[in-house]
């Protein structure tokens, strides 16, 4: 299987006999016991750990030894996610860090902005956060208005670099 942890994909494949596991092309000795639905005891290379796991459609949530990891499931549907987005610095799709409500829009459509300028203030869970632009450019789209509730994947506004030819 393939998992996305932070920005990196990882290949994980237990052997058919479940006595070894291949993680990113390294083979480890492997043993496990299933305690219940959410709880496993796992031995990798001689180290036993209690591991707790839960999942939803797109993620695995795993706790081992007091540390929690969030993995994104990678579905083999031919599409490739999680890459390329941050590499493209000519255009940014401004999204909120979490679902929340729009407190204030700090720019207008068509406005020129400079790296570090505040774009919009979002509030969620009693905390206001200001989103800044990381590029110099022009606000080409504003898709929300003050007071609106937004999901985490909503594109609030778009900032595009001015074309050099213009």
């Amino acid at each position, binding site marked *: 299987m393939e998992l996305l942890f932070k920005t990196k994909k990882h290949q994980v494949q237990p052997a058919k006999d479940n006595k070894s596991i291949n993680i990113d092309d390294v083979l480890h000795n492997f043993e496990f016991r299933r305690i219940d639905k959410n709880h496993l005891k*796992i031995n990798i290379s001689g180290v036993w750990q209690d*591991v707790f796991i839960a999942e939803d459609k797109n993620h695995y949530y795993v706790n081992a*030894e007091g*540390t929690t990891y969030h993995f994104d*499931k990678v579905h083999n549907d031919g*599409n490739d996610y999680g890459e390329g*987005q941050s590499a493209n610095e000519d255009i940014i799709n401004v999204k909120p860090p979490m679902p929340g409500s729009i407190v204030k829009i700090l720019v207008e459509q068509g406005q020129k902005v400079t790296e570090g300028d505040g774009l919009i203030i979002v509030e969620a869970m009693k*905390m206001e956060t200001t989103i800044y632009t990381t590029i110099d450019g022009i606000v080409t789209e504003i898709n929300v208005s003050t007071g609106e509730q937004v999901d985490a994947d909503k594109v609030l506004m778009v900032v595009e670099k001015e074309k050099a030819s213009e």
Partner: protein
Amino acid sequence: MFKKILIANRSEIACRIIRACKEMNIPTLAVYSEADEFAQHVKLADEAVCIGPAAPLQSYLNMDAVINAALENGCDAIHPGYGFLSEKHEFNKKVREAGLVFIGPKPEPMKLLGSKVESRITMIEAGVPVIPGMKTSSKNISDFEEMAEKIGFPVLIKASDGGGGKGMRVVHKLEDIKSSVEAAMRESQTAFGSEVVFLEKYLESPRHIEFQVAGDEHGNFVHLFERECSIQRRHQKIIEETPSTAVSPELRQRMGETAVKVIQASNYTNVGTVEFLLDKDNNFYFLEVNTRIQVEHPITEMVTGIDLVKLQIRIAAGEAIPFKQEELSQNGHSIECRIYAEDADNNFMPSSGKIHFMKEPVGPGVRYDSGVYSGAEVPIFYDPILAKLIVWGKDREEARLRMINALKSNVVLGVKTSNKFMQTVLENQHFIDGDTCTNFIDSHSDDLKFNSTASLLHAFAAAALSEDTNQTQTVNHVARQLNSSPWLEIGYWEIAGGSR
């Protein structure tokens, strides 16, 4: 005693209050917003009524809805918890006008202590040490400049009605005073409807030391010793302990007496907290009074044995405080870690969603005040506190080691928490040495970076095994939403938020 108490709050503190009422055999009525239909406090209370939509202003902050719920359901008292309406003197007044008991202080001291300038004047007159600075506000920029020059830079401009860092400016040189005062006034006007600001000395690396206090209607006033709450991120406490390593018995006595003087000077009854800053030379300065139960009240309960929520209820019912100052003592050491839904890897950004699984730490000396459960939703509308992990130990080191082990066995899956980060803080040598201050996390940020990949292989393996189990379910998955850390793609964030 009361016939039935309405709990005007949610999450762990509502559950905490309900448990106290159960032990006192007082029936409870929970109120909840539409987002909290399945919240833990709704499940725990004897009865529950919905008082409005998810947005706090329409439910938990809706004074009339709360009071009507109490009147319509046979309650004779309201416990406000912390946050929400708990420090709104208008609400306090309305509750009393409706013929109900407000479990807390009277409206007048609440109003007085809610104003930084007013309470500062009262305290100066009562001989309570305050941070050097202006006694009251002024519209005259030159008053600010003169005081700044007199007490020396850096100085702090502060909104009288402010809180949580809003309307606050640190100023390092004379020429910035004018613009900073004007900005603070504008900000305060927008946020609090008042442009009253003042100037005081800015203390660098102070400790946050607060005293638990209580007063009753029979003229008794006591303090229940200090709590040190210096470990903060975003001006918000995350780890508290008592006793403080910085407070000697002699200092404790002086500060405790001062705390009692503060509530006497303001005619304060019921349970409250007097906050001080303590500088490196062991000078302490009055900061403010929190006129309600505090998030971190359990550590005081652990070392004094006094149930503070029951004490609130008893005092509100007209009973006298059932102990004297000289009967109180501090027994052992207690530490609290706040389990927030937040991402310590990413500037403690709040995290919402569903708790798919949780496993609560147990064992000797471990207390877990929780507002959630496996399967609970963490709504986006409210403060992201999930639970509080509290430990007691014979001494600080026993408590510290106990807390580390309890954090390791505290499993919350589905939303992020600072669980691992707090372990790292507790293992930091400066913390071990008791060398704490309010900018502890910022100043040791490099040491506090934790290697979150120590168990990564085990975690990968668990996911692979989990997939095996679910294979039949996963084949039909359609294209997923791109919701992996979108804010990483945008840049950096300025964090502003409420402090408690």
